[in-house]
């Protein structure tokens, strides 16, 4: 988990925190070059090893995706897609799924627990489990369907980009393990530059639409993909074409909050003002008398109401 000693926090969920600004930490990025990934799952194994995660031994369910899905103990997952282009040429698109570490993280925006989600100055978005209350709002806030809440301890989990390793100058475990260099780690500038070279090379091999996936909709990400078909990210097991924080979440965590609190305050204040202006509605002795009489069967007409200013 988070190593708070050596990583400065830029943003903290459900809090207003002034980021420390003495240390200069360049934004980092993990670059996943899908075009040179062979789907060996070494990254998954390394992730499990380093983070001491052991999901259940599952079943074969009709694909090479194992475990079937991301989970509280499966922070990264190779997703395999068999895709045939219009000409019938088969491609086996293999994408390592996991937290994208958005510059504008939907999870952090949605999180109600102060400090349960932090964004470090280097861009890593990390879950601080001891502060997590298990509400699952991060799940709803995430445009990439990444966080998973454990049914055991009711805490949300996801890739930490090995913040513990990064904070001491190591690359994330998946990067270390990748045999083909399909996962690289460095400053975001460097990774973007290298991705440009990769894209240029891919274009020489006929992938005219090759490109870098660093979506603007979430302010860019600190995990980026080199895709052969950057015009169609959704080919890659549903990678969002244009990810953004859902307008529902934006509304919920954005505009609605002040409106709601203002509305409630207004209601309360309105009552107070009414009290001050109109005062209490008192039962008068006459009311009691007439009421008692009516109750006793001496029916009084209700027409005496007018002219009873009490």
């Amino acid at each position: 988990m988070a190593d708070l000693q050596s990583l400065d926090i830029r943003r903290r969920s459900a809090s207003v925190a002034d980021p420390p600004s003495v240390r200069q930490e360049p934004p980092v990025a993990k670059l996943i070059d899908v075009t040179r990934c062979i789907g060996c799952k070494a990254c998954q194994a390394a992730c499990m090893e380093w983070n001491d995660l052991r999901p259940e031994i599952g079943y074969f369910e009709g694909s090479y995706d194992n475990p079937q899905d991301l989970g509280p103990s499966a922070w990264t997952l190779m997703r395999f897609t068999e895709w045939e282009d219009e000409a019938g040429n088969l491609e086996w698109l293999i994408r390592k799924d996991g937290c994208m570490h958005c510059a504008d993280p939907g999870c952090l925006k949605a999180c109600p627990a102060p400090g349960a989600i932090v964004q470090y100055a280097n861009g890593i978005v990390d879950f601080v489990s001891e502060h997590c209350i298990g509400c699952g709002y991060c799940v709803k806030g995430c445009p990439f369907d990444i966080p998973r809440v454990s049914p055991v301890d009711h805490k949300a989990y996801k890739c930490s980009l090995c913040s513990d390793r990064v904070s001491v100058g190591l690359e994330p475990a998946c990067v270390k393990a990748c045999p083909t260099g399909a996962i690289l780690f460095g400053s975001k500038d460097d990774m973007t530059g290298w991705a440009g070279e990769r894209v240029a090379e891919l274009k020489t091999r006929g992938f005219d639409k090759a490109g870098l996936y660093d979506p603007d909709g979430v302010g860019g990400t600190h995990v980026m993909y080199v895709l052969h078909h950057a015009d169609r990210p959704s080919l890659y097991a549903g990678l969002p074409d244009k990810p953004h924080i859902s307008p529902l979440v934006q509304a919920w965590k954005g505009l609605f909050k002040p409106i709601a609190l203002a509305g409630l305050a207004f209601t309360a204040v309105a009552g107070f003002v009414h009290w001050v202006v109109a005062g209490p509605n008192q039962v008068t002795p006459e009311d009691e008398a007439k009421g008692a009489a009516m109750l006793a069967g001496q029916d009084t007409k209700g027409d005496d109401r007018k002219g009873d200013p009490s």
Partner: protein
Amino acid sequence: MTNTWQDIKNANVILVMGGNAAEAHPCGFKWVIEAKLHNAAKLVVVDPRFTRTASVADYYVPIRPGTDIAFLSGVIRYLLEKDAIQHDYVRNYTNAALIVKEGFGFDEGLFSGWDAGKNDYDRSSWDYELGDDGFAKVDPTLQHPRCVLSLLKRHVARYTAETVSRICGTPQDKFLQVCDLVASTAVPNKMLTSLFALGWTQHSVGSQNIRTMAMVQLLLGNIGLSGGGMNALRGHSNIQGLTDLGLLSNAMPGYLTLPNDRETDFTAYMKTRQYKPLRPNQVSYWQNYRKFFVSLQKAVFGKAATADNDWAYDWLPKLDVPNYDILRAFEMMNNGQMNGYVCQGFNPLQSFPNKGKIRSALGKLKYLVVMDPLETETAYFWQNQGAKNPSDPAKIQTEVFMLPTTCFAEEDGSLTNSARWVQWHWKAADPPGEAQSDVRIMTGLFRRMQAMYRKDGGAFPDPILNLSWDYLDGNDPQPEELAKEINGKALVDIKDDAGTVTLRAGQQLDAFAQLRDDGTTTSGCWIYTGVWTEKGNIMGRRDATDPRDQGLAPNWAFAWPANRRILYNRASADLEGRPWNPDKPVIAWNGSKWTGIDVPDFVPTTKPDSGVSPFIMLAEGTARLFARDQMREGPFPEHYEPLESPVTNLLHPRVKSNPCARVFPDDRAQFGSADKFPYVGTTYRLTEHFHFWTKHARINAILQPEEFVEVGEALAKEKGIGQGDWVKVTSNRGAVVCKAYVTKRLKPLAVDGKSQHVIGLPIHWGFTGAARKGYGANTLTPFVGDANTETPEFKAFLVNIEKTAGPSEPVA
């Protein structure tokens, strides 16, 4: 590998055929990616399935399992027809110009010399025409009708693109695309590397598969150069070491061979092994055989091996059959001819074909000793696991001993990788429980047996009583001691002609050139001489310095032979000694000697014009497009169908399959026919697992938990099989019930006009370990061996598939 893993990055075209490098060798595959990134290399994958390798390939071309020779012969035809061969190389460095005897021929699927009675060839006609000088005749113009190249042209003429397509099911345009790419490397400065593995070996024509590709590479002039070569990607971290050390029933360390029972004395034995040169000036390095053999005998028997007793030749076992390979062993076991089995680091119940037969054979043993770090299925063959292992323990009398061993990380030792690098490794952890090293266990067995022979006598005790056992603690030989012994040393002071002592008695040797045939040197494995010299443990070197950044790293560990990183590297330079590819030179003649980034393939002062050809292990000095008598089924590769095949042999229906393949009669009776088993089954490995080991490891089990088969969408539709449905796959030997992976990656192939489906069977599941229990694909595979190596035909056989109900309970 002729070259190194790192050297793959120097290739211009990478042909992955007969293997799935990304899947099975993901770490080494990084060099393929390097080649793509930094050398603009094109990756071509020819495979029945669209594999993980294909997922990053520039070209994927489908092929029917077991038809690689037809495909590659078609490539050869194309190269010859388009004249896309490297002429100088072919003329001077291969036997293309040598003239073959009259009488050699090929007709209707059989080469000359076929003996129908013996079911084998008389190979005497498969040789060169010798001149009066005893040397092979040669026609440098390559015009002689019986020169090797002419014969080869004639032989491959049948493999037109159309025929190839009809046999292999490969669309003609895709086949020609591959031909074009391959042909593009016929120029001296373009290289093709061939990466292959069990996809070529595990066939009844496995050796010939590889030979055919080697011939392609020779025609292209791609052997001996940076970025070229024939690169067998070994399936196990030390399987190269296994063959180097001769752990086969007919082999001795360093590719020396055991005598057969007709070689009753040492002289007879040496006669067939010290090849005389077949061309003038050739090295024919096996002329040194006697030095290697005597030094080995001195290492094994020490002082007891003397000139007087022919270096203890008589104590060696003499083979009555060519080979006691694993198929023969289990055949004998099943027939009650083999009663005890020490199974060390092997899991036959999962690894060998026809699981039912293996199970039956193990049940007929009196005793079975299993030495393994894991609880293997073999050790539990007697256990009733329902349909997955239907044994009846009450009926099995075999006594099973399980001796837990250390695994590689729990002991010091060496591993020899695919690139022939002998690398030392250091113990990382203590072994669990009672586990002991294999060496210690074998020592314990040996010492006890020796004591019993010494006490009680017995038949032929000499080899056991006289075995040299010169270790500090005779009960616990250390890996370092064994390594030094394998390297070899001088037994006496050895002097040069001037009388100067060049080697002190007891001194570790530096190179096999120092070995002598007079009993004054020892070496446990001549090609490993140099692994532990007076400088210490050369295998432990970890200097990654790489001159010219060409991927040789000469100071990293030790590569046999003689720390040579690229075999046949003399062929990297032309006749004058200039590198064919000046951009990536390996060695070059500088006017007085050979220099460069690798150890030259012969004496460094051999002048280029001396006439010494690069392939020094061969009597003719040139590489063999024509194999002479070295291959059992013919000097040229020929397309033979797998023993179980859905179609006839288009080229010669009367000789459908390899006539020399290893098949026992009872196994032939178990072959299925295409009417009942219409689909081609092929087995393979997945990257998540290593054979049957890693299913014991939780993480690997998580990554690929349960047995499945791969079925193409077309066949699945035909059979009503949905994604993840339970299916029953049957061969004439058994049935596997597991889930189906319906995939686009297996497409029906148009074989001779008919649609042929292929079913993929990953092998990794059994009934022990952490993963879910499975049947094991070897339940289905045929008990067939390659004609030369007896490697089982795991890659092509006949199966049927039906949708079925799943088990009533979830898979454990």
